[in-house]
């Protein structure tokens, strides 16, 4: 969502900086500043402008969320709120409306993310570190699974869950039966996430030293033990990658949720967000505060697993 927008465009521009200029870093800062060429100035100007361009909507949104309705109409969107027009009321109000959806989203995202990552990891281990006939075909099926668009499965998906009749299956326990929609969504997202998780885990597992796994076999460890005692403990960084990826994907999904969730009490945050849209008057401060509240958990996940994420992306074992 909006969270990763500002960082992404800045990095490629950075890489494109003239490689000859980086040599200047071994001299003093003063020396460097003195003979900064016009090219360098232009480069920084462009970078700053790009940064500002991408950050402006975020900044406007954040400031708008702290303005009263009057202040919003009387100021430009990216100006800070006037003293008498500053308020946190939109945040409280938005949180009030979204809290149920936030809880439901967590109930959905945490198990779906964990299940898809764990199953992806297991599948990748079986496809990468264990030899068996026909594994290439199975791998290709997984890779194909990555490319199935959400829209293509909507109809089969709803028909499938109608046929399954999860409500009846879960009828033995009332609290669970009332959550049947959410359970269906958890399973759907978990299943949909397995291919991409498998591919991510596979690329990581193919870098694991084969001799080490052979040593473990000679040490008497079974395939399951090798997974539990060697592969899994070494998978930290790639788990961070898939957890962040899956968390963001599932948290931000609206399409599956719209199709599969029928009862209002199971609504997730992306659906609840729509409730902040006024019918007559648009309350932009409320909508902005709601958008930030809805996006916050994905940001937090990046912060929490950021270091391991970087390791996982760099492919360190």
């Amino acid at each position: 969502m909006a969270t990763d927008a500002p960082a992404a465009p800045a990095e490629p521009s950075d890489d494109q900086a003239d490689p000859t200029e980086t040599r200047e870093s071994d001299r003093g800062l003063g020396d460097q500043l003195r003979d900064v060429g016009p090219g360098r100035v232009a480069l920084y100007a462009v970078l700053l402008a790009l940064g500002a361009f991408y950050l402006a909507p975020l900044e406007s949104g954040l400031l708008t969320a702290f303005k009263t309705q009057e202040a919003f109409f009387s100021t430009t969107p990216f100006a800070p709120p006037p003293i008498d027009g500053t308020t946190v009321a939109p945040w409280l109000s938005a949180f009030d409306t979204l809290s149920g959806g936030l809880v439901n989203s967590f109930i959905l995202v945490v198990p779906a993310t964990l299940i898809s990552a764990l199953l992806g990891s297991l599948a990748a281990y079986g496809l990468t570190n264990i030899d068996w006939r026909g594994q290439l075909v199975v791998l290709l099926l997984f890779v194909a699974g990555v490319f199935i668009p959400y829209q293509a499965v909507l109809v089969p998906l709803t028909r499938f869950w109608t046929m399954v009749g999860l409500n009846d299956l879960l009828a033995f326990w009332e609290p669970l039966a009332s959550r049947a929609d959410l359970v269906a969504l958890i399973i759907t997202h978990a299943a949909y996430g397995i291919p991409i998780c498998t591919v991510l885990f596979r690329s990581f597992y193919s870098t694991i030293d084969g001799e080490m796994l052979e040593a473990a076999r000679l040490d008497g460890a079974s395939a399951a033990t090798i997974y539990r005692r060697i592969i899994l403990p070494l998978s930290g960084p790639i788990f961070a990658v898939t957890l962040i990826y899956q968390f963001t994907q599932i948290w931000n999904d609206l399409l599956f949720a719209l199709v599969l969730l029928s009862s209002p009490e199971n609504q997730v945050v992306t659906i609840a967000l729509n409730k902040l849209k006024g019918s007559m008057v648009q309350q932009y401060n409320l909508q902005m505060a709601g958008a930030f509240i809805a996006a916050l958990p994905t940001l937090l996940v990046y912060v929490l697993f950021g270091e391991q994420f970087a390791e996982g992306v760099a492919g360190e074992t």
Partner: protein
Amino acid sequence: MSALTLDHVTKLFDDDGDEIVAVDDVSIDIADGEFLVLVGPSGCGKSTTLRMIAGLESISRGEIRLGGTVINDKPPADRDIAMVFQSYALYPHMTVRENMRFGLEESTDMADDDIERTVTDTAEMLGISSMLGRKPKELSGGQQQRVALGRAIVRDPEVFLMDEPLSNLDAKLRAEMRTELQRLQEDLDTTTVYVTHDQTEAMTMGDKIAILNDGRLQQVATPLEAYHEPANRFVAGFIGEPSMNFFEMEVQGDRLVGEEFSYPVSESTLENVGDAERVTLGVRPEDVRLVGEKTDEHDFQTTVDVVEPMGRENNVYLAFTADSEATFVASVDGMRSVEAGQPAIARIPEEAIHLFDGDTGVTLQNRSLEDLEQTEPRI
């Protein structure tokens, strides 16, 4: 402890329908407690052979027996074999202690205390007690090597398999570990199969060495036998540093005639040559002598091409004529001054020559060992 037998072992790999023979009908008997070195150039099938013994590769044909039991279809874990890998293959997320415990935890029902005691004792024997709490990443190459050994030793297996375990160490450490490994193996008295491409390791470490080339077993012998009585030209050229000198010769009457020189041979040598028309004459560098004047019919006028001073000896590259490309090596005393460009008379004594069949490479005659007994008394 048990004897290990490879009985007509063959390994075929399938390469898109083509069969590639990696190991071709190899039979070796390794006695209980013996140290066998499998040696050969890269790609000769020595590692594949080792992996078949370990159970990491299937056996296409033949049998491998350990203590009389066929182990062809036993999974690696049930073979009671421990292996030391070239990359050490330590578990990076475990401490040294956990690395060494792992095998015992997985393959035995030993009590925790017993495992701990075994690990501590082994660590002490290898001098790595102080590192038990550290991770492999924090250790030097030599220390990691010891941990890898320790991991194999704690298992107290029937057979040790070692796949070029010293090749990642620097030269000095390698020489030290070579001696230490030998001492360890003698103390433990465990049957060991050691794979290397380094003929020095093969010569110095093995009770017996098995030389492989292109998947085929060339010779199984003690190191000195392989050195002095090679079974064929390949073994003669592979074992020994610098390599044996070879000359392609034609048999003409009682002389062997080559491009650069002709070599008169005695009656008994001619008998060994038999019907062969073309032979390869081989002589070890240390058997070529530089003499003052031509007094023997086996003395040849040469020119010194290059001198490699090694300190203890000089490796002198000699050419029969000044502008000749082909050279052969003589190892002479390090104190003797030899300079490039100077003329020299090389003596190739008949009792020191090896003769191989020009077509098949099979040995027709090895050097006389009467001479050997005098100069290199065996213990």
